């Protein structure tokens, strides 16, 4: 991703870089130094959040979609959510940004990051449904499930 970003900023033909990037932390490190504004579509990492004046979001972003899920789950009267997401910086940032919203909705969230690509998530979903001890925390991240 760093190589790709370097190619983009050294092409001398890009004024603003737009797109959805999984590992946007690597990209913003390059574009920020090169003075090319980065505009991400939906996901974002903590590095993008901190890149004041160098990275932007002009869409409704993954955050609002995730909070809409929290609202919907709350309306359905459900209490516990198992959240599966790809383990890249752009997704991790969104998940972290929405934790407050899930907590506000009174939901307990177990987070299951999975590697990219993960064509078969059977083992992860088996882990989710397995019996487990009673928990006390509101939110926690489980280690990635073993891939099949």
């Amino acid at each position, binding site marked *: 991703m760093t190589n790709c970003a370097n190619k983009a900023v050294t092409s001398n033909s890009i004024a603003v870089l737009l797109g959805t990037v999984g590992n946007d932390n690597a990209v913003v490190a390059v574009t920020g130094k090169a003075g090319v504004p980065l505009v991400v579509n939906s996901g974002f990492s903590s590095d993008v*959040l901190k890149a004041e004046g160098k990275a932007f979001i*002009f869409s*409704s972003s993954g955050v609002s979609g995730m*909070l*809409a899920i929290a609202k*919907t789950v709350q309306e359905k009267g459900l209490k516990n959510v198992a959240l*599966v997401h790809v383990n890249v910086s752009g997704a991790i940032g969104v998940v972290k*940004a929405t934790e407050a919203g899930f907590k506000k909705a009174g939901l307990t969230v177990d987070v299951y990051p999975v590697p990219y690509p993960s064509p078969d998530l059977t083992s992860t979903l*088996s882990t989710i449904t397995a019996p487990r001890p009673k928990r006390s925390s509101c939110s926690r991240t489980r280690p990635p499930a073993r891939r099949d």
Partner: protein
Amino acid sequence: MLADPTTCTAGLKAALSLGFTKPLYGVASCGTTDFSKNAATYTGGVTLTQGNVSPTGDDADAKIFTQAMDKNGKKTEDLFHAVDGFQTVINVYTALKTVPAPATTESLSKALSTNKTHAFMLGPDAHFTCDGKALRASRGLPGMFAPGNQEFAFIRREYEATSLTWSTHLSWASGSASAVCLRLSRRVVSSR
């Protein structure tokens, strides 16, 4: 809950193979043709959400969006995946169109950082400023809806057996003025 488009279809197929019956939720970008086909057979129910007005409704922005998609031969079920990208392109174009030539790093960044009362594509009728109030720690995120601190519109796409319904909501009021950046009109947009 399937939180990103790269895991949605694999997660849904795993749920089907394991005989899951719990409800599944995902973001709208999950809604590919392959996902939709499988979602229609999942007995637990599948719901996708996105934080904007219905792109298939009567909103003026939605009409622009669907016309653009139609022009490029995209089917209705593919629309949701494109919303974030379309919003971004239109909103960035609007922010940058006043930048004088030749554009510089400084002029581009200034235009993106100081753009005010900008109509938020598919928002609905949301306006934002980049004054850092949307999310105090992140002045670069004018379009992001601050978690749990303001109203926002969202759409829901629900698969139940073979039926598919969409609905639009304005929700999540709290009145925390410190975090409010977007100004939303209380307008429920009809969906079809």
